[in-house]
């Protein structure tokens, strides 16, 4: 049920993101969602793609530094206070979120958010108990 996120190191310079995306496009890799965390000199691109292993391979081949990380995609109701409620549950279970970001499209009328927990196994256990739905890989990136 984990989703494999592709993370990429980029210098904060014009054209760098574009050239990385060009490499992915060249192998028909589709980006489902993407977020960037940046400081002055560099950024970390985090993305969910249809084929993360192939994405990592082709990026490495083109001398980009990248890695893959396991994250969870969780359905959150699209209504006021729903995210707050989810975070409350996480903190009650002592789960630390390293970062999170969202999908642009809804699923079953719900928002889908990606969470990177410091302890993914503990998170899965706790979330199941709280009744949160963890979206399966197949439903996010296809076969």
């Amino acid at each position, binding site marked *: 049920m984990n989703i494999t996120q592709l993370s990429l190191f980029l210098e904060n310079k014009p054209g760098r993101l574009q050239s990385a995306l060009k490499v992915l496009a060249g192998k028909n890799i589709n980006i489902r969602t993407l977020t960037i965390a940046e*400081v002055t000199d560099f950024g970390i691109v985090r993305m969910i793609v249809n084929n993360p292993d192939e994405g990592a391979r082709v990026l490495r*081949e083109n001398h980009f530094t990248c890695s893959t*990380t396991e994250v969870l995609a969780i359905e959150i109701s699209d209504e006021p206070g729903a995210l707050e409620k989810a975070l409350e549950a996480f903190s009650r279970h002592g789960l630390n979120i390293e970062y999170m970001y969202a999908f642009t499209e809804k699923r079953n009328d719900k928002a889908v958010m990606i969470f990177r927990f410091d302890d993914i196994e503990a998170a899965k256990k706790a979330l199941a108990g709280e009744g949160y739905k963890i979206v399966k890989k197949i439903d996010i990136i296809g076969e």
Partner: protein
Amino acid sequence: MFNKEYEAMQLSKLREVQLERLRWSLKHAYDNVPFYRQSFDAAGFGPGQLKTLDDLRRVPFLMKQNMRDSYPFGLFAVPMEKVVRIHSSSGTTGNATVVGYTKNDIELWAEVMARTIACAGGSSKDVVQVAYGYGLFTGGLGAHYGAEKIGATVVPISGGNTERQLMLIKDFGTTMLACTPSYAINMADHVERNRPDYDFRKTKLRAGIFGAEPWTEQMRTEIETRMGIDAFDIYGLSEVIGPGVSCECSAKSGLHVFEDHFYVEIIDPESGEALPEGEKGEIVYTSLTKEACPVIRYRSRDITRLYRTPCSCGRTLVKMEKVTGRSDDMLIIRGVNVFPSQIEAVLMEVEGTEPHYQIIVDRKDALDDIEVMVEVNERLFSDELKVMNQLAARIRQRMQSVLGVSAKVTLVEPRTLARSEGKAVRVVDKRKLK
């Protein structure tokens, strides 16, 4: 030992050999090169006045600039029909330095490189893969001729094309690798990144002779653990001969100088005065047997120390310490002396960091700024921003405490830092541009 007679010679006998050869070399230079004639005359020194080796101190130095000013063949001591080979430095600053070799010089070079390979435990049984660049750069052909001289099997692959290097190591049963230490690390990186199926330990590779750039003990440990080989430091400079000036033996505690061919002195780089044996300073070379391009008291700018202690390998040749820096790439940052090798040591200390780095020195508002750019590889990379920031902060803190300078640390993408001739360009001093 490839040449026991000379490599294990008694000191008194060696001094006799040196004195006799030095007399010839000084006369040869004086008689055939106008530059030396003028410089000896200006110092009031005639080659015939050399009574002891220490008399050499009366002879003026040969500076790198003198070599550049003599571009291309101004320091050649033989007519061109005697010159069978030319090599040249990449010449990124000012003119390139050009050196020539006679047939005998090539033979001498092969001899000292054969000694080097033997010093690293090599013999005719070895398969030596020469991954130094072939061409005007002395690395490739120097190692090549030495390996042939000792009777080893040479694989003249030259630098680059890492996949092919790995394939030939495996398929040809390469036992000894000759390349720059940074290229060796590059190979190990490549395997780690792209070839989970490849294991250096399952190949016959057992030793490497690495040189052409300064490297640290930490780099040695890294190469030895990651490739499962013995890594030996070899040293040379094209002005003197190329690789083959000195090399490490199995003791790995300093590099034996082939002083029956290259006479060495240590001087204070500031005053030019000779320093007593054992003190650290700039190493100065005088060729004793070279015909085409004799060098008399060549200021190498390399900082080291000489010591003559009994060595477990049986060689009596003087040892020089691993070169820790150069008197001319020493950076003075806000009054603090900094050697790039110190910065490298700090980077190596910070876990997992590899020495693909570049130091940029600039002057802003009359204040020196130092920036260290570090290439981020997969071992350093994390998807968490805080981890990356902590890495930069750790490097910054260690630099502050070890070097006493505060530097900006910038993390950059792989392969963004300039390399030339397979050598990393470690320092960019923009202060000189004004």
